[in-house]
């Protein structure tokens, strides 16, 4: 006689289960592993596992002299390489009380803004691709190529420039630089309308992003979500406005704040920032004063013993550099406060209760760069 075994039938809809999103997943834009706890396709909670691309940059800085540190900061947030360089240069200049020439300040500010536009263009491409629109990817990269050409002509490299040095610049800008930048602004003012036509006004994209992943202002402050993502929640955190460096105090630009804090607002913030950056460049590009491209610096740079902190507004938020010096030519301890790490910490909070497909959109709108999270 056959015995009938009654196996307990589990309802998979009601049970929680875990899946790994990443480390190799196209929408995480690098090697980030998210352990997602799901019920059906609703995200219950989420745990980021970092460290897949940890290279120990902070420790490596301890054996390098200050001019040598510059090339390591390129490799943290590689999409805003110039701005990372700027942070270290400003810190060394602040510690040594060196006054850099006005020309250097103007050039640095213009290049920072160009770098910000290039970074947001790449974010726009990849955000479109995350949402399933491959066309955006090609249009964004095509326009980013124009900026990279300007960079390549002036400093020889496209992604990792190492162009700033403590006290000034590696070399003077190329004679064609000003013309190239003006041509680019004229070109991109036309092309950014295409961006709006193809993605901002797209009804599918709006339906998928409006009201998804809402981050309130209080949460943004308590999680430390900064940059365009924080400003989308109405958190005024632009370092360029609050603690001006370079010649940002001479340029006229707005700090754009949103109210809703959802994915679509975070998207709009970056689109507006590209326009504001173009406005800043247009004001400065004709007024670059003549002069030296570097201040007089000693051959061996030694910071006086003490603690120093400097912050700049990178493309994804505030980047802080903290140095403890014991008077030697290498720092005793170096710490980078990277914007992506704190932005990632809010991902669990804002993605609870959304569908797993929306998690891709939320992750795209936070715009994280993994080498900057892990360093």
């Amino acid at each position: 006689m056959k015995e009938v075994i009654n196996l307990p039938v589990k309802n998979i809809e009601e049970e929680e289960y875990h899946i790994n999103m990443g480390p190799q997943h196209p929408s995480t834009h690098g090697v980030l592993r998210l352990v997602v706890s799901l019920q059906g396709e609703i995200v219950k909670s989420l745990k980021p596992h970092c460290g897949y691309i940890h290279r120990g940059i902070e420790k490596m800085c301890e054996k390098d002299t200050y001019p040598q540190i510059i090339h390591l900061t390129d490799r943290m947030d590689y999409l805003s390489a110039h701005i990372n360089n700027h942070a270290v240069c400003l810190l060394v200049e602040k510690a040594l009380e060196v006054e850099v020439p006005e020309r250097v300040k103007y050039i640095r500010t213009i290049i920072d803004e160009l770098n910000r536009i290039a970074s947001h263009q790449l974010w726009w491409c990849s955000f479109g691709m995350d949402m399933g629109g491959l066309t955006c990817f090609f249009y964004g990269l095509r326009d980013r190529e124009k900026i990279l050409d300007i960079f390549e002509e002036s400093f020889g490299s496209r992604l990792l420039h190492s162009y700033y040095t403590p006290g000034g610049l590696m070399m003077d800008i190329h004679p064609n630089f000003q013309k190239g930048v003006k041509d680019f602004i004229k070109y991109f003012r036309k092309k950014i309308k295409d961006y709006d036509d193809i993605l901002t006004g797209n009804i599918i994209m709006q339906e998928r992003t409006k009201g998804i992943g809402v981050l309130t202002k209080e949460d943004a402050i308590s999680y430390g979500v900064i940059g365009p993502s924080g400003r989308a929640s109405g958190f005024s955190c632009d370092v360029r406005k609050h603690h001006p460096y370079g010649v940002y105090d001479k340029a006229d630009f707005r700090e754009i704040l949103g109210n809703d804090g959802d994915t679509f607002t975070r998207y709009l913030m970056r689109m507006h920032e590209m326009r504001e950056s173009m406005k800043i460049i247009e004001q400065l590009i004709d007024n670059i004063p003549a002069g030296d491209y570097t201040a007089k610096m000693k051959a061996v740079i030694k910071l006086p013993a003490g603690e120093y902190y400097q912050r700049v507004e990178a493309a994804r938020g505030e980047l802080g550099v903290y140095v403890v010096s014991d008077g030697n030519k290498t720092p005793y301890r170096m710490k980078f406060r990277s914007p992506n790490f704190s932005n990632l910490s809010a991902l669990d909070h804002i993605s609870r209760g959304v569908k797993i497909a929306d998690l891709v959109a939320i992750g795209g709108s936070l715009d994280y760069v993994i080498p900057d999270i892990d360093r």
Partner: protein
Amino acid sequence: MNSFFKYFTDIFRAVKSLLTGMKVTGRYFFSPWEIVTQQYPENRNKLKMYDRFKGEVIMPHNEQNFHRCTGCGICETNCPNGSIEIIQDRIDMPDGKKKRIISKHIYHLSMCTFCGLCIKSCPSNALAWGQKFEHAVYDRSKLSKILNQPGSSIIKDIVE
């Protein structure tokens, strides 16, 4: 009758929304001169890099096979990754003194991060950026290069 009318308006609305969505892509489809793609391996002969392009570190030699490197080692100490190695040698000068020359200036391209500190710090402008960028090889030992050409010597007008 009403549903019949709705059927056609739905088709019309669908076509209209499709055209709105495809407006930009359609425009590029009918204006192929805006395409910016380069056919890379085919256009290799015409490809011209910018003057300041950082391809690799080279040591320029003039026609008489003279270079400008004194072998002082400043580039070696300034390099953050140890990608430059200088093997020095000493020769006897006619006045009885010994002079330092380079025997080998070894450049490990595989370790170079193209920061440019060696070129910036060189007191006698012996190093420069090369334009070559196709560095792929089958063996990584081929990426260690000796920058001074065989039989070359230092140019006369360099004063240490």
